[in-house]
């Protein structure tokens, strides 16, 4: 792992000087533009394609599979992690003729994001209501 074998010149104490504003702005931009590139695996057609997600696992794989399978225009969707020591996740999508695989994938991501919003909303509401009722119990 590169983390443990840091070079000698890294092995120094932190300098007090704050880095110049410009340097930091660059880093900001880098983080904002942090997006992952989906790789389309060879042998794809419009309606049947496999995608590779670098750095993902079962967490997104299974959740995304569920979201995509909820789409009636999808004939098949499945995911696999081809090798446990590579952090790569492959997603297979086959659709009917009315749409294409990339569109379906995008819709799946949208579905998941909508779902997350609902979960956050309902969770916050339920928690606040619970905390209020607990406070009532304490005071009465």
């Amino acid at each position: 792992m590169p983390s443990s074998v840091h070079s000698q010149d890294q092995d120094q104490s932190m300098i007090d000087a704050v880095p110049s504003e410009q340097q930091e702005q660059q880093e900001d931009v880098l983080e904002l533009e942090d997006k992952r590139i989906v790789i389309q695996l060879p042998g794809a057609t419009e309606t049947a394609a496999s995608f590779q997600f670098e750095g993902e696992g079962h967490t997104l794989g299974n959740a995304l599979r569920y979201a995509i399978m909820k789409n009636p225009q999808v004939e098949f969707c499945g995911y696999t992690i081809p090798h446990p020591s590579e952090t790569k996740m492959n997603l297979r999508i086959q659709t009917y003729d009315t749409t294409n695989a990339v569109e379906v994938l995008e819709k799946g991501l949208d579905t998941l994001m909508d779902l997350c919003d609902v979960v956050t909303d309902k969770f916050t509401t339920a928690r606040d209501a619970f905390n209020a009722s607990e406070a009532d119990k304490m005071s009465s």
Partner: protein
Amino acid sequence: MAPLIPSQAELDRRLIVDINPETVSNIPSTDFPGHWPGESHEWSLDKFINSFKVDFHRNEQFESSFSLVGLDASIANAFRRILMAEVPTLAIEFVFVNNNTSVIQDEVLAQRLGLIPLKGSVEGINWMRWFKRPTEDDPESGSSPSDYNTIVLRLEIECTKNPNAAPGEQDPRKLYKNAHVYAKDIVYDPVGRQMDYFTGDNAIQPVNPEILIAKLRPGQKISMEMHCIKGIGADHAKFSPVCTASYRLLPDINIQRPIIGDDAKKFAKCFPRGVIALEPVTAEEAAKKGSGYEGHDGEMKAVVRDAFNDTVSRECLRHEEFQGKVKLGRVRDHFIFNIESSGQFDSDFLFLESVKVLKLKCARWKRGLTDLMR
């Protein structure tokens, strides 16, 4: 084809994962378009908003328990996995040892230090950025330690004899000064804009000040500088913000034929206390033909009072007298979460963070997808 509407009994059957004496059945979820002919099951946000429910059972600062009802296992599992491995926290990552004459080796000490949970202003931790590690190909590609990606802690401690110790004193903690090094001896050294966030109670400090780090004897000394960075549990367990994050499915006990009298008492004993209650058979029930209660007016019958606390031990399935009278199961879409924070963040906040992380993941991949569509 006209949409088929399944009967309520069929819907109830689909909702339960059956638990049999030796096996489980009806396991995978089947609410997908095309699985049941004539039924829709298409994703609908409105339907989800109406059916999804959150129930809180407990909400203490560092431990909370709540139910999420109406989710699929894949989603609930994503939240659980993110809680353990992908919500970022702060931990000591680089230790620069100036002097260590204690009996504990540098690398062992560094490992111990890394495991100490650190707390501080949540706002400040959110403001902090990732510390990018250099890649193997390009050793220069890592970020340099700055106020927005590194927290500096120091540990300077020396053990000395205590001149005021009582004669014949045996306890090393009284006989010497600083014989034990605790997490509270670590000192935070704010740099640059960290002063705006991490001041007073919001300063970076160990969650548990009494963690024993090392033991010293007079003349031994530890002097080190520690750099903390933000990281995730997938990289190292020390970054994981939870002690445990787990869910279980709500147990379901279905008494199908009457269990009366001594059998009922024995039945109740098969379950944790409070799960099964005994109630007298009413005259009305006893009068009803074919109910199985005929002529048992006033006797005790077993009823399910609170399946929530059941452990699903299947004990009741081992006994001859309950054969065919009871069915055990779990409710497929009722997840009882239990989140125990390791002290950096409040437990309810952690769950919200995990939802945020999942959404962020999707947003990032979606941005990457636009390149593919061009």
